[in-house]
Each structure stands twice: as C-alpha cells, then as structure tokens.
C-alpha cells in the first residue's frame, strides 16, 4: 500500500467527447470514452478504501475498488470480469447510470476534491473487453431443471435473467417489441447509448443460455397463468411503466404533439431519424417545445436538435435547481444549444385549420412552499399568460403504469396508481411465484434501480425455486 503522502495528486480525468457544434447534427455517441492511458490515470486516483463507501451506493453492489485496482494495474480484462461478477450490463450502466448520485456521491475523494470517475471506468473496461472480441462467459452450473419466465427485456429483466442462468435455471424472456432492451432501445437515443452496445450485452446473455421471445405481448397472446400452465415455475414482471402521461389541456391531440414515448420510439426503435432509408416517419419542427425536465425531456430535446430544429426549448414549471435530469445531460443539452424556459407551464395548444400545432399558450410560475415531493411547489402567476410559436411539442412529464398485463392477472395486488405492490427487498407480489421489479413497481426511475430490482428478485426467485425442491 502506498503511503498517503506519496499519493500523486491527479485531477479527475475528463472524458474526450464530440464537439457540441458537430454532434448536435449527428446521432453518433457524444463521449468517446477513456483511452487506456486516461483510464489508468483515473484509476490511480482511487484511495482503495478499506471500508469502501462507493459499493453501498451501487444498487447491484459492484466491487468498485477491486475492479478499479485492476484497471490501475493495467489488467483491463481482469477488471471487466470483476465488474461482471455483479453487473451483467456494465457498458450500459457505465453510460446511463446517475453515478453522481450513487457510487460517486459516496466516494471519499469527493469530500475534498472530485470523486473517482467510477462510471467512466466501468464503461471503459466493458468497452475494452468488447473491443478485444474476447468476452469470456462465466461458468454455468448444471441445469436445475427450473424454468423462469421474465416479462419484459428491459434492464430489470435482463439483469434477472443473467443472474438466474448463472445459478443453473432456464430463463425465457418475453418481449412485446421486436428488439430486446426495453427502454434502452426505444427510449434512450443512439447518441447517449449506441444500440450496438445493447445488442452486444444482450448477445452475451444469450450466449449464457438466456432465451428471448419477441413480439409476445403477455396479457394478450399468453396470460401469466398460462405461463405457469406451460411449466414455468416462477414469473418475473419487469414490464416498465409504459403509459404516457398527458397534460389534459386543450389542443393536446393536435398533430405535431407527441408523447416522449412516441417521439423517442419513432426515432430510436424505428430509426425514423434515418427516414426514408427506414420507413417510419417523424415530424420535424423548426420551433420545438419539450415539456418536462427529466432525462427523457433532455433526450427528446437533443433528438429534436439533431433532426434539424432551429430552436428547441425545455419548458419546465420549476427552476433550474429542481431539474430532475442528470447534471451531465443538462450540461450536454445546454452545450448543444437547447434553450431553457424555467418557471413556465403550458395551459393550451393552438392549432391551424389542418389540425397542426402552431403555438402554445403558457403561464409563468413561481415557487411556493415545498410539496409532498420535497420540492417547492410551482404556483401559476395569474395574468402572466403569453404565447410561443411552436410547430412541434413533445410532452415528457412522466409515465404511468400500463394496465395491459396487470389487468389480466387475477388477485395481483396493485396500488391506487396501478403499480404492482411488491416487497422492495425481494420483488415478491401478492401471488405466489410472481415477482415484479423496476418501473412497474416504483414508477419511472433509473436503469440501475431497475437492475437492482432484477438483482434482488433473482436472489429471491432462486431461493423460492430451490425451496420448492
């Protein structure tokens, strides 16, 4: 162990990225990732704490100091293997996890200087391993003969499947869409998470033995009870919170007004940004308003810019300090030219005779006392109405629980918003053998929290299966 005073003072290494002027015109990934030199230099900043706090901040408990130590020593493949002991999707997590509020928030270094760039290092080792073309498979034990059905191939289902096959169970994922990944492919844009990376991570799971069936809308083509009849011993519901929330204000059904789900699905999953090479069209606006302040709003705004908009506004009813999006995404959006209209809320949309949106009437807001969410409540300022010319609007104010599957499972306890009631530690629901996790339990959250839920349920399902004999 190097003594403290001998530790070289290294600043947090920035990650090289595409120039904002260039990147706002293309869909290529924004950050290039660390080079091996940068990664090693950053890894050397880690204090290798005896009682590492960072691990506590990771919903899947990645052995952070151990893998970072391997990076510092230049054993990048060893580091990748170490990460994968706990995280089946490191290239994804390294890109989309909110590290600043999780592992990095607890990094001891962060108290005096900047925390170790754990997320960037995780991304580096996963990318390095994939680039070498030798992604080693973990040892798979002999089959237990138990079968698990996972509904939804998003982060929760993929994590769960990766864990369960490592215990020797047979896992089939049923996916409603034609591609695996859930929100990773329909929601998160290429410039933030290249789809080739999702494919590679899913491919790794398939090589481990996970089976994925596409175009299966469970609740329609098969019910969960039918899955049990087919011989599945347990079912995990990781279907996300796929119901768009609208604002219920006049003019919302005008053409040119999208839910973020539709806008992003058209662009990401259906590749409408490559129209007419791909057949799915997408409306391109000159003046675009994105309503909301989360990561989905940032993704929508940056997509609109790349589709050629002159002006893209984030219209958010609170102030900048309350923006729920990751700081890095807000920063990226600002750099690219997204304009922010804070303390502003639309009250109606204005259309032309063809039924297209041409404008938006807004009201100015001010912040009052904190509400249930702990954030200061936005209050409209009477008489402050004004209109903005808009020819495209994306509504990104959140999602709700989609009832397609839950309404077809008898005796499954739901809460008043339609989310599944499940034990936060195990994902156990009111029905024996049915587990649930991710957004369909918690409401819209993050990729890593969904993965954490998949991780917890996999342990619980494993115990359940083994106890059944």
């Amino acid at each position: 162990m190097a003594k403290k005073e001998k530790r070289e003072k290294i600043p947090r290494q920035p990650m090289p990225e595409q120039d904002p002027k260039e990147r706002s015109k293309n869909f290529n990934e924004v950050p290039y990732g660390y080079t091996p030199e940068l990664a090693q230099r950053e890894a050397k900043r880690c204090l290798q704490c005896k009682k590492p706090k960072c691990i506590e901040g990771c919903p899947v408990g990645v052995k952070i100091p151990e893998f970072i130590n391997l990076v510092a020593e230049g054993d990048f493949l060893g580091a990748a293997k170490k990460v994968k002991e706990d995280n089946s999707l490191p290239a994804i997590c390294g890109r989309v996890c909110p590290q600043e509020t999780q592992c990095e928030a607890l990094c001891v270094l962060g108290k005096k200087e900047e925390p170790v760039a754990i997320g960037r290092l995780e991304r580096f080792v996963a990318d390095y391993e994939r680039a070498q073309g030798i992604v080693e498979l973990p040892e798979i034990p002999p089959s237990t003969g138990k079968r698990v059905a996972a509904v939804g191939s998003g982060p929760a289902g993929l994590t769960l499947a990766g864990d369960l096959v490592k215990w020797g169970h047979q896992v089939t994922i049923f996916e409603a869409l034609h591609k695996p990944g859930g929100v990773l492919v329909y929601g998160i844009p290429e410039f933030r998470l290249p789809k080739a990376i999702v494919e590679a991570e899913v491919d790794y799971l398939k090589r481990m033995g996970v089976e994925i069936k596409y175009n299966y809308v469970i609740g329609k083509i098969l019910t969960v009870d039918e899955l049990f009849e087919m011989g599945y011993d347990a079912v995990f519901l990781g279907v996300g919170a796929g119901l768009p929330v609208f604002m219920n204000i006049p003019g919302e059904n005008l053409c040119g007004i999208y839910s973020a789900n539709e806008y992003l699905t058209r662009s990401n999953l259906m590749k409408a940004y490559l129209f007419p090479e791909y057949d799915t069209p997408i409306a391109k606006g000159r003046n675009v308003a994105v309503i909301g302040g989360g990561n989905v709003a940032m993704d929508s705004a940056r997509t609109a810019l790349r589709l050629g908009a002159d002006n893209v506004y984030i219209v958010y009813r609170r102030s900048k300090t309350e923006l729920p999006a990751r700081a890095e995404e807000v920063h990226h959006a600002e750099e690219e030219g997204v304009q922010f209209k804070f303390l502003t809320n639309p009250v109606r949309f204005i259309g032309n005779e063809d039924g297209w949106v041409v404008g938006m009437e807004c009201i100015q807001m001010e912040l009052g006392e904190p509400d249930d969410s702990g954030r200061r409540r936005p209050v409209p300022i009477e008489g402050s109405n004004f209109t903005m010319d808009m020819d495209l609007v994306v509504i990104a104010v959140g999602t709700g629980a989609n009832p397609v599957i839950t309404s077809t499972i008898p005796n499954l306890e739901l809460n008043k918003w339609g989310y599944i009631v499940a034990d936060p530690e195990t994902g156990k629901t009111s029905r024996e053998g049915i587990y649930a996790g991710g957004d369909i339990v918690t409401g819209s959250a993050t990729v890593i929290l969904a993965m954490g839920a998949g991780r917890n349920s996999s342990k619980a399902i494993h115990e359940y299966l083994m106890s059944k004999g």
Partner: protein
Amino acid sequence: MFKILDKREMADNTVCHFKIEAPLIAKKAKPGQFVVLRPNETGERIPLTMASTDQERGTIDIIFQVVGKTTALLRTFNKGDYILDIIGPLGRPTHLEKLGTVICVGGGTGIAVLYPITKALKETGNHVISIIGARTKDLLILEEEMRNASDELFITTDDGSYGRHGFVTDALKDLIEERKDVKLVVGIGPVLMMKFVCKTTEPYGVKTMVSLNAIMVDATGMCGACRVTVGGKTRFCCVDGPEFDGHQVDFDELMKRQAAYLKQERQSYDLFLEEHGQ
C-alpha cells in the same frame, strides 16, 4: 418470422389477401382484434385487422389495400415468403350480445374488418342485415363471405355498376326507417364513411359501433400515437379500442391525425416506385 401460406389478389388487383402461419395468434384472436406487422428490418409497424383466423390450421388472414410504401412492399411478398414480425392479437375483442336485429355496414377494405364481426354477431343469435359498398363493382370484396355470414345482404356502388346506385348510408337510412327494430349498427370503412354512418343513425338513436384505424406505433398503449377523442375524453385506439361508440367519436380530429404524415408517406412511396421501376 411468419410464413405466407397463400396470396390472393382481390378487387381488381387493388387489394391483397394473405393467409399467414401464426398458430399462437390464431388460437387467441377474437373478432375485432388486430395485429401489428413489420414486413422487414427497415419497415414500419402497421396495424391490420384479421379478416379471419383458423385455430386448427394455425393461420390468420389479413386483407390490405395498397395505399403507401409499406402496403406496396407487402404486396411484393409471395407465397412462401416470410413477414419479419407479427404482434397480436391486440385491441379489445368485439362486445358480442344477442340484441335482435343488427345492421353491419362495410365500405371498401373495411369489409374485411367487418366480416369476422358480422359472423360473430350472427353466431351470437342476432338477425344480421349487412350492407356492403364500393366505388364500383370490381372493387367490392368478400361478397360471398358476407352473404353467408348475414341473414340479408344489400349492396351499393357509388357508380351504380352493381347493386343499388348510391352510398351505403342511403341503404342504411331506408332500412332503419323500414325495420324500426334495429338495435345496433356496426359501421366499418373509410373514416368519412363511418362519420356519415353515425350521422345517419344518430337521429334514430340507434347505437352505432365503429372500428377506428388510427396511426399506431407500438400498439400496446405505450406511445399514445393512436389517441382519439371519444365523448370529450382522450382514448387510445390500440388498447381502449379499436371499437368505439361512433356517436361519441371526434371524426374530424381523427381524419386530421391520419393525414399527419401524408407528405412523408408520399416521399416514401415515390422512392419505392422508383426502386421498383414503376
């Protein structure tokens, strides 16, 4: 991958019929439900209602009119070819009830959507009167099938080349006047036709169901592309429909929303025709 077992051109080669191998969907599908298909990797997801299903043979039938790139591309597929993705059954099945006399009104390719519903209403014990119409005789589809599924069948053509000269709504109005005991009208066809079917029945207070063909993407209630105003409320055609009480539907809004991508659709179609040397 879903194999095309049979292909048939209909209606003067403007409409195409596929019999497709899809055993699970065939087993589950009920009248009124639809599938979403994506023909190939670069294709879009489009909803199509199943004209019929055969549980024993494990097949579904779809009937479509060539209106743009995707349907034009589909038509180049032949017996033995594969459709990349078919998702279904989707949407709510038709509510079936023994009511008495019902009138099923179909126009154009809407008749393909109407046919399984007509059959089911008859099997439920209703006295089914059907009215089917087309612009001209050669464009009329499923006449035999509709005749077999109905107790009485009336035909109209806009140009008078077959059946009664005029619109389906003309025949509908006369029938309602004449029978007095009509409990339900089901109207399926172009949006404009459905709007006028509803306008025709409204003064008589006859309940009227329509099946809406809004633009969809995922068709599982996730994206909201297919939203339609029904009774002043926003509903999703894919999961709340496709059938709605026609007297409550805002047809003008639906027509505008359906036209949202006309320019791109034209561009896409022209490109396709160019590539296929037409």
